[in-house]
């Protein structure tokens, strides 16, 4: 394992210390395991809170700031945070109008946030949860834990964050978050496995000429393995899976993210975006807004995910609303 780290045990606290040093707009409480805005959330604003295992940077801490999250709870690498973190975060940012938890659909995240919501309720904090489950590589059936939450998390946090900033109430903020999730679908492909600091070696062996199709963001193997293929073919099969979803069936305006999984350079992401754009144009869909870069990573995995969100005027105007976080910034 070749990584910039001191010890596998200290990687999280070192990285959090680095975040704190790099971003004066963040307040990082290492003891509580909470990253929140340095500026206090204003009274009456619905607080938006997320979290999950570390190793997906900039998700979630990099999305804390005006117009997006009020706080994020980083768990150990690929391990969802514990309820104490979410409770501490909720208490720190709640301003009388309740808290929205943005939770990616993994058993661990769901259970820990659920316990946190109960603890928060015990302390008189009203919580609504938005569950993100956009990954079409996983069938939503009784045979699985349901679709995973991946790239759409960025869209949910951006758009719900904008509505919260505008002063909407708890139900409205949670409602738009759910609407964004329902309108969004993702698919990811890995060219290499990733290595967790604790494990010290790649999570799976992948021959030099094979790729994993339908991976998540925790270094798990995907749905199947295939020979390396041209970007055009890989993107076509990913987009087939995404556009087969009823939520995205009709053409129209979309927000698109081509996201690097950590080890893939921007140049390749642009190659992927080109193919995505060409396919969407074929379907008569218009890319209204887009992101290309590393937003939801999986440590050092080489690979990319594609997320498409069917957007109406309301979602687009919330997308365009000012945001000022380490990883997304515009209009401010």
């Amino acid at each position, binding site marked *: 394992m070749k990584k910039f780290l001191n010890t596998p045990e200290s990687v999280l606290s070192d990285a959090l210390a680095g975040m704190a040093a790099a971003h004066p707009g963040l307040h990082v409480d290492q003891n509580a395991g909470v990253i929140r805005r340095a500026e206090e959330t204003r009274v009456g604003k619905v607080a938006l809170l997320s979290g999950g295992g570390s190793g997906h940077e900039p998700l979630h801490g990099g999305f804390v700031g005006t117009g997006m999250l009020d706080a994020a709870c980083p768990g150990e690498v*690929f391990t*969802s945070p514990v309820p*104490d973190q979410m409770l501490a975060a909720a208490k720190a940012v709640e301003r009388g109008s309740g808290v929205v938890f943005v939770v990616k659909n993994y058993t661990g995240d769901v*259970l820990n946030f*659920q316990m946190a919501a109960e603890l928060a309720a015990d302390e008189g904090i009203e919580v609504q949860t938005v569950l993100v489950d956009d990954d079409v*590589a996983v069938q939503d059936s009784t045979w699985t834990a349901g679709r995973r939450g991946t790239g759409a998390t960025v869209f949910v946090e951006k758009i719900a964050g904008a509505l919260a900033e505008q002063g909407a109430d708890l139900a409205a903020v949670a409602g738009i978050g759910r609407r964004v999730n329902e309108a969004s679908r993702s698919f990811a492909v890995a060219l290499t496995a990733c290595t967790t600091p604790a494990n010290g070696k790649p999570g799976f062996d992948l021959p030099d000429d094979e790729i994993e199709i339908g991976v998540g963001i925790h270094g*798990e193997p995907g*749905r199947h393995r295939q020979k390396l293929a041209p970007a055009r073919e890989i993107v076509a099969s990913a987009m087939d899976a995404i556009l087969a979803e009823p939520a995205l069936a009709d053409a129209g305006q979309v927000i698109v993210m081509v996201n690097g999984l950590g080890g893939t350079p921007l140049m390749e992401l642009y190659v992927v975006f080109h193919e995505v754009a060409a396919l969407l144009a074929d379907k008569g869909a218009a890319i209204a807004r887009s992101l290309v870069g590393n937003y939801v990573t999986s440590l050092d995995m080489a690979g990319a995910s594609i997320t498409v969100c069917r957007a109406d005027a309301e979602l687009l105007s919330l997308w365009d609303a000012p945001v000022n976080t380490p990883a997304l910034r515009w209009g401010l």
Partner: protein
Amino acid sequence: MDIALTRQWVQAVAEAMDEHKDRLTQLDAAIGDADHGANMNRGFSAAVTALDTFEPESVGQLLTKVGNTLISSIGGASGPLYGSAFRAAGKALTTPEPDAAEFLAALRAGLAAIQAMGAAVLGDKTIVDAYAPALDAFAEELGAGGDLAHAAARAAKAADDGAHATIPLQARKGRASYLGPRSIGHQDPGATSTALIFEALAKVVNP
């Protein structure tokens, strides 16, 4: 089951998790995200530390403390599941030092908590696949007139068999379910850690 023995059990579990953390992580790497060993080790070493300065008045209080500590230190799927199990077991106990039957009832409350929370049934390739057969064996042994030591030994054996029996199963809960048929052929990490917990119990109650 008295307080000292319960302490020893938690201590023995912590030692087992430390010893087997790499194996658990490798099992999790195959069908999950390669953190189960680190998770369990972190949780039970935190539990041991928490118990160091904790003087419970009952086995129930002790188990509840362990459960709370697991919840606060593990995260992931296993944190709430194991944490709730220990908490529920602790809360189920009404006598300070339960006899074997009372202890079985507490363990049953633990399994019920896991199933209430995670909705897994036998055969879903989870903790349940080791935990449920362990309780069946425990109960059978007690029913046949066996004592705690024998019951725990049989439970440990059944949990271990249960863990092995997850190999041919396709996962239907947790992260491994994402792999669909590719989860077949691998032993479930959670079932394996459950087997270690019962093995530790058998060890401490067998003089």
